């Protein structure tokens, strides 16, 4: 019974708890952590829009976030200081709330997206989280040196005659798709807390980059395990429990 009810959601969330802190470390490196929240809101709006249009919400969420990730760089050139992310976040939130307010089915899904619906994760989502997560981690490993160089020595690519934009756009797209997937499963704030808090703590404590990635991953995974057990024991929604646990951990460690 436990197996049927909880093992699939548990493993689905665990896969994301491993992926998101690592992804968040690179978002923090690039000073783009706000983009994570923007992608989550855009994914929520896209999922609701797809539902209203009679399409699969998951596809709508992934498509909307993917579009935002692929085109974000066009806006951020003109809208500096994080304004592009703030506008995406605000626009995504407004559209999602309006859709939820005007369509009964969208209202139900809207609640699920913002609160998190981990316990309803099915085998398809488990496959996406494990397969997509493994692919994303592999891509991040390949991109890691380029992302670090682009941040610390931004002229390096120009001097070597290498175009930097494919790496930047590729990373944006990867981050957007990962956040869309995580939003569908963990909810907006559950996904954001795993992307933001573990890397924030790891950046303060770790001795080097590799140790920072390991520490972020450990904090994310431990926080997830604790939150999963706590939410079940107290019969509370998972997303807020995870977020409160990570916030408390952050305040204590920081």
């Amino acid at each position, binding site marked *: 019974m436990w197996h049927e009810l909880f093992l699939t959601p548990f493993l689905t969330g665990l896969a994301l708890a491993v992926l998101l802190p690592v992804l968040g470390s690179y978002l923090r*490196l690039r000073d783009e952590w706000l983009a994570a929240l923007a992608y989550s809101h855009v994914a929520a709006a896209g999922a609701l829009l797809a539902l209203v249009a009679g399409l699969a919400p998951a596809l709508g969420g992934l498509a909307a976030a993917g579009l935002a990730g692929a085109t974000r760089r066009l806006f951020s050139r003109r809208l500096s200081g994080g304004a592009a992310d703030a506008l995406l976040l605000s626009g995504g939130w407004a559209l999602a709330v309006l859709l939820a307010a005007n369509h009964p089915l969208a209202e139900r899904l809207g609640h699920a997206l913002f609160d998190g619906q981990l316990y309803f994760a099915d085998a398809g989502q488990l496959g996406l989280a494990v397969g997509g997560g493994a692919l994303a981690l592999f891509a991040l490993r390949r991109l890691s*040196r380029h992302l*670090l*160089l682009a*941040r*610390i*020595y931004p*002229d*390096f690519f*120009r*001097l*070597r005659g290498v175009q930097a934009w494919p790496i930047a756009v590729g990373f944006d797209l990867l981050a957007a798709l990962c956040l869309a997937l995580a939003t569908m499963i963990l909810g907006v704030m559950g996904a954001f807390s795993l992307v933001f808090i573990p890397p924030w703590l*790891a*950046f*303060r*404590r*770790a*001795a*080097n*980059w*590799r*140790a*920072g990635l390991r520490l972020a991953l450990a904090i994310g995974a431990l926080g997830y395990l604790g939150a999963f057990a706590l939410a079940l024991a107290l019969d509370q929604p998972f997303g807020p429990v995870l977020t409160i646990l990570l916030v408390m951990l952050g305040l204590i460690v920081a």
Partner: protein
Amino acid sequence: MTCLLRAQGLVAGWQQPATQPLDLTITAGEVVGLTGPNGVGKSTVLAAIAGRAKVFAGRLERAPGIRLGLQTQDVPPVVGMPISGRELLALTDATPTGLPPWLADRLDIRLDCLSGGQRHYLTLWAVLQAPADLLLLDEPTNNLDQAGVAHLTAHLRERAENGSGLLVVSHDAAFVGAVCDRVIELGAGDVA
């Protein structure tokens, strides 16, 4: 000697011309100093050679296939990031061999836990020791104490003897005198 860079009547700038016309040649194994008062566009010339700033007039020719290295006065944003000196050097394929002893044993410490001078020298070293045929250095002695300047001077001479060309912008007259084979003074005045 192999000519690495040739500029004739080069006028560089960002939105508009910001330098007087400059003639410049750098050959392999040569260290050329570029001096002049603040605001004459020394850093802009380096930026134009590196492809960051615009060339408004004149010609700028680089030897085909040469690899450039550029050190700017911008401080790499490493504060708050868990990046060690060893990781920094690995990023640019720079070797730690030859680092001064006061830095060699601090490679595994986070960059933002080092002193300003130590951090500057390590970020400079990551550029100096990266594979490059022509190095462009902008005020490399900033933040360095006497020991740092002496080590840098010796290293740049060694780098030139091994065949690299160097263009060095600096206000430090003693350093320029010690390290450069010749010096070009960029003139002030109205920009055409």
